[in-house]
């Protein structure tokens, strides 16, 4: 029974003693990605992330035919400020944060709850490959949904109320740049929060508690002294926004971190967190009873 079918892999394995079996890993990554992306988008747990993704979009869509009362809504130059408030308060801190928490924590924790993680562990796959496959699938899911939310929300804010000004703003003005920057920040947020929540799902039986702790820490970031501000994801993301976020009169002002430091720092920390996840998964035991 152990004959020909494993031969194609065995030959790669022999090669693998000298070379890293990239083609095998890529095939395995593809297979894991396909399984996971289907679960992320079509599984029963997906309902919550769709609701979260629609959270800013629906009210803006409802407001589209009307111009709300209030001076700032009559003034086109204020729309960039309005969007920065919507983006900072609702999209980044709520939709992306909780959406990433839900998607990435469930990558492993959800399978432990469903008692199905062992099928991956029983395949001839390095567990590190599994971490990468799952992380990438979570990342693609969150990026598609939440950059979609970012872009659609911005367009829904601008276009219905000041159509011709908005067109000029996006085509000839700073609009497209701002849109792409916000989308980029969303991608970075998914990368950073995603890695954090993935690793939390591997270590903690009830990941809601660390998620809420981080949420609290990110919310009080504006009150923290500059040194502590830097121990957060939101500080680096705030530093990148095209329109400074309104943090209120009690905010402790700190110099924004330049993009050339903020982006590599965020990516570096993400990499470190993923290495911790790989270490953890190598030693993870399947004991569903205790999970």
């Amino acid at each position, binding site marked *: *029974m*152990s*004959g020909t*079918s*494993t031969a*194609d*892999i*065995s030959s*790669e*394995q022999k090669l693998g003693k000298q070379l890293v079996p990239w083609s*095998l890993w890529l*095939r*395995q990554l*593809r*297979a*894991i990605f*396909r*399984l996971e992306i*289907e*679960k992320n988008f*079509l*599984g*029963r747990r997906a309902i919550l992330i769709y609701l979260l993704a629609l959270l800013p979009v629906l009210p803006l869509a409802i407001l589209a035919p009307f111009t709300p009362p209030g001076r700032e809504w009559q003034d086109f130059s204020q729309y960039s400020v309005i969007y920065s408030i919507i983006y900072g308060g609702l999209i980044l801190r709520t939709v992306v944060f909780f959406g990433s928490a839900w998607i990435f924590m469930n990558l492993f924790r959800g399978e432990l709850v*469903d*008692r*199905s993680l*062992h*099928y*991956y*562990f*029983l*395949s*001839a*796959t*390095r*567990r590190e490959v599994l971490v990468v496959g799952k992380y990438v699938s979570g990342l693609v899911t969150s990026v598609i949904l939440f950059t979609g939310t970012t872009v659609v929300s911005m367009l829904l804010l601008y276009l219905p109320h000041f159509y011709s000004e908005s067109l000029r703003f996006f085509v000839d003005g700073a609009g497209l740049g701002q849109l792409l920057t916000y989308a980029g920040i969303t991608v970075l947020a998914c990368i950073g929060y995603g890695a954090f929540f993935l690793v939390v799902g591997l270590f903690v039986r009830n990941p809601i508690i660390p998620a809420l702790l981080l949420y609290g820490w990110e919310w009080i970031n504006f009150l923290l002294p500059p040194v502590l501000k830097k121990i957060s994801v939101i500080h680096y993301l705030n530093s990148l926004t095209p329109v400074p976020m309104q943090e209120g009169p009690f905010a402790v002002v700190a110099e924004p971190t330049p993009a050339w430091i903020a982006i590599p720092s965020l990516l570096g920390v993400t990499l470190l967190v993923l290495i911790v996840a790989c270490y953890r998964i*190598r*030693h993870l*035991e*399947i*004991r*569903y009873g*205790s999970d």
Partner: protein
Amino acid sequence: MMTTDHLIIFDDVSKFYGEILGVNRVNLQMAPGITSLVGPNGAGKSTLMNLMTGLLRPTRGSVTLLGIPTDQPDQLFRKVGYCTQIDSFPRGLTGREFINSFLLVHGFEKKRAGELTEISLDRVNLLDAADRKVAAYSKGMRQRIRLAQSIAHQPAVMILDEPLNGLDPMVRAETIALFRKLAAEGLHLIISSHILHEVDMMSDSVVLLNNGYIVAEGNIHGVRDEMEEHPMQILIRCDQPAKLAAYVFAQDHVVEARLHEDRRGLFVKTRDADRFYLLLNEVVADGEINMESVAPVDDDLSAVYQYLIGTK
């Protein structure tokens, strides 16, 4: 003598779940063929299987399968298939998708994964139901699809935790025949089961476990022979059981001789079965007593289990 590349080796393995003992000081070497793990619930059978497949890590000691340590899943599961008792599945998949997707995760090319999927579904008679969702399967079908998943990549070692659970008698017989066939091909099959007569029927050797300890291991008849505190019981069917009783009872190794209820047979308990059989040869040669049959009564797994572990 077999090298470590052909054996499953437990070297002084212990596993504790916090304060609770899983298995303790296990030293085992399993050769190809069917090895059955037998013991009551909580004896440590599943723990041993999970240790063999790296789903659990030993607290102490080491486990290697065909020379491969269990912390290298990418190498290990080229050679090993594990059918667990865990009755849960990834959501939303049909039987065919379930097997095929995990063959792709193994790293097989799409075409080869498709072929192997069909072969394994065929082997467990699930081709007709392959396109139904696993969630809609009966218990027996779920058992078979797990079995198919464990054999799909054609491993050299198969570890099967209660693989006959939930199967109807016909499928049970077919599955046992499949196991025997695979063992004859030189595979290792490690099987845990509660059904002693089936284990007895198919096993080349057994490992008896109780409370996390190995109570006995080896060929079942060899294990029985070594149990000197339990004299072997033999039933002799003959025309003059009373006369035979008087004759054998004079032997020092015979501890009990009792007539069968139908008075056409004699139960004898002896501490030395070999000497007793020689004695019977002499009786047959004398020609005074006609013997129809001689058979050990407690030389099977069920009896050994009862003597060593105490419950069925």
